[in-house]
């Protein structure tokens, strides 16, 4: 039996819970992405509820907490019987990261991992060389890298209304995982960051700084995504500030240490080329002289 589910933590854990509650033979159940579902010979495909449904979210939450309890059982770091989610061993938190992966095998990998966690309990923490655990670890590691790339390479532009706007195209659904980071970083700023690939966006309004609160993550339909991407109403200062950043970047390169001297391209190694199109410092248009120099940067009135 193939359970078709959404590619999200709620979708995958909810489908895992459905398979468990149906008392289906574990070895004969697999999870497949709803949008890329292909039945094997003789296999029945069963559709699971959408990850927007309250029932599925509730079931997913039960499964997640169950894993936390089973893995944390006997763990000296457990709090109120639940995994603290930041311990060095196998913990439920890695499921959250892995579930943001775009890899088609993700739902089944998480499904097997969850089943194993219920069977192994606290022993799961030391099964770090197990193939199933390694597979989920790899997914989680990749997503964490993409989260890091999002924090590093998202570039905001100041709009005419004073808000900040960024478009970023990661290889995993990182916006829900990094929105809190940007909200904390930006303080009272109003901002929006859009990922058109996964059609997710984070909005943050000013004056509501409280840890991860004050921001909202939404799923966009195609029309809303296109509308946001069409945003071009830049602040009059924006082009000059971009030129400043490009000038700074161009000025700090050191001679004698580039790819021709090293034999390999360290820059591309650290900063994958797929992000270069969105980087202000690599956009040659920012070499052009901006028509307006903001008063504060004219060098005349400031002391």
């Amino acid at each position, binding site marked *: 039996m193939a359970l078709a589910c959404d590619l999200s933590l709620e979708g995958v854990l909810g489908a895992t819970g459905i398979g468990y509650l149906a008392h289906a033979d574990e070895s004969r159940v697999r999870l497949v992405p709803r949008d890329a579902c292909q039945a094997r010979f003789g296999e029945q495909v069963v559709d699971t509820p959408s990850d927007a449904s309250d029932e599925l979210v509730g079931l997913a939450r039960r499964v997640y907490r169950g894993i936390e309890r089973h893995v944390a059982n006997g763990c000296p770091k457990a709090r109120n019987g639940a995994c603290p989610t930041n311990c060095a061993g196998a913990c439920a938190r890695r499921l959250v990261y892995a579930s943001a992966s775009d890899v088609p095998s993700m739902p089944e990998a998480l499904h097997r991992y969850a089943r194993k966690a219920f069977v192994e309990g606290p022993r799961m923490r030391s099964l770090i060389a197990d193939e199933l655990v390694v597979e989920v670890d790899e997914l989680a590691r990749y997503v964490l890298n993409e989260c890091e790339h999002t924090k590093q390479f998202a570039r905001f*532009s*100041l709009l005419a209304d004073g808000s900040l706007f960024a478009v970023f195209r990661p290889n995993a659904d990182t916006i829900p995982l990094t929105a809190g980071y940007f909200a904390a*970083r930006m303080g009272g700023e109003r901002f929006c960051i859009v990922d058109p690939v996964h059609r997710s966006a984070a909005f943050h309004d000013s004056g509501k700084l409280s840890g991860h609160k004050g921001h909202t993550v939404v799923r966009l339909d195609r029309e809303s995504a296109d509308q946001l991407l069409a945003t071009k109403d830049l602040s009059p200062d924006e082009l*000059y500030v971009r030129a400043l950043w490009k000038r700074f970047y161009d000025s700090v390169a050191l001679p004698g240490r580039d790819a021709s*001297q090293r034999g390999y391209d360290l820059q591309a190694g650290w900063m994958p080329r797929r992000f270069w199109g969105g980087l202000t410092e690599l956009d040659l248009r920012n070499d052009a002289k901006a028509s307006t120099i903001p008063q504060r940067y004219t060098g005349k009135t400031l002391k």
Partner: protein
Amino acid sequence: MDTLTKLGILADAAKYDAACTSSGVDRGPQAGKVGFAQGGGLCHSFTPDGRCVTLLKVLMSNACTYDCAYCVNRRQASVPRATFTPRELAELTVDFYRRNYIEGLFLSSGVLGTPDATTERMIECLRLLRDEYRFNGYIHAKVIPGTSDELVDAFGRLADRLSVNLELPSSASLTELCPEKNARGISHPMAQIRRTRELEEQMLKEGRKKGNSNKLEGSLAAEPLVSALATNPQPQTEALSAFAPLTAIEGSSRLTSAKQLRRAEATDTMPLRAVGMQMTLRPRSTVASGRRRFVPAGQSTQLIVGATPEDDNHILQLSNALYQRFDLKRVFFSAYMPMVDDARLPEQGAPVPLRREHRLYQADWLMRYYAFSPDELATPEEPWLDLDVDPKLAWALRHIDRFPVEVMDAPIELLLRVPGVGPVGARRIMAARKAGPVTFEDLARLRITLKRARHFLTCGGKHDPKSPLDAQLIREKVVSDAKQSAYNHTRRQAEGQLSLF
């Protein structure tokens, strides 16, 4: 001159400073302020030469009255000069930060008249950032040797990290190339920073015991610590100098090593401490960086290598002494780039000693995270690091009798000595072996660098028959593999024969 032109001049003038980290302090977001600082730091871009750009690294001014021979901004150099106004630079920092270009500011300067006058200008910029623009991001500032204690203190309460550049690895080289600088002028602020941090730590601990930490933190923020220091002098530390005769530094190092050895003999292990994912011999403060008000991310320094004749042994002993005596967080090494015609320096066109710089960073890493002592990496008899193999492998090949190490029962200290096994890998091995026997296939899944490690390990008493424990063979294999790499091929072409100086 508009800011665009100034920025081009003053960023270009600052690019030879190697440090660009924003790590060392965890300070959460605060209501009404912009930004925060996270312990791990974050790189926002990478230059064509592959260096991380995490901070807006600029000089306040490149109009320098000093005449250091190696410096592109020296008094006699014919270069365009510019100076930021404090507000202009503060505006620039906030504009870049809001757009997610940077984590904060790295502010250095040429000596604009006197050290105090220059520092006052930098302090004004930092004050504007912290008080007026409510900037809560990371700030790294350079202390100019000769700055008065009061200004260093004020600087330290606005910046997250301070650094005093050692510049050159010996007092003799400094005297020869930097006529306006001297060893005491450099070591004095280093000692002051360490003392003030220690005093603050002590006060915070006492405050915690008495349960009045909030009141104490408030008083620390309001009152310059330099006045408190006046009543708590520590003459021994004051007398120290980074350039004191090296014998004194070595003596201290050996004393510590001897102590460590005695402890190691008693416990049959090395006295390692776990600090996060690191293993280190150095004690760690129990006061969180976020609670500190004075230089919460600690201090660092930078050395130029390849401009003067000091060997790697000298540099590593010096680094170790700096870590111990001034509690430095980092010593940065900057391979000298010949930019100046001067008979006392390598001529223009000489290759930049990138490989040597890389080996020094590796050795430094081993001292900080793997509990190696400098004596294990280089000696007066063998004063240069092996350029063909990394320092850890070089050590293992010199001590081949200590291997192989059994994966199933080796202590973490021993696992850390295995080439290809790092702090994370060692912990993974220790976790995995609790679940049952660990094989070489398991090690590969744990992301251990088996290409190196398999020579030095046994799994359940079994050695990999294809990877013999033969020092000569291992060296030949590693050197042969390295020769195939694009890096080595290119560097050999650039350098001709390997040259160390």
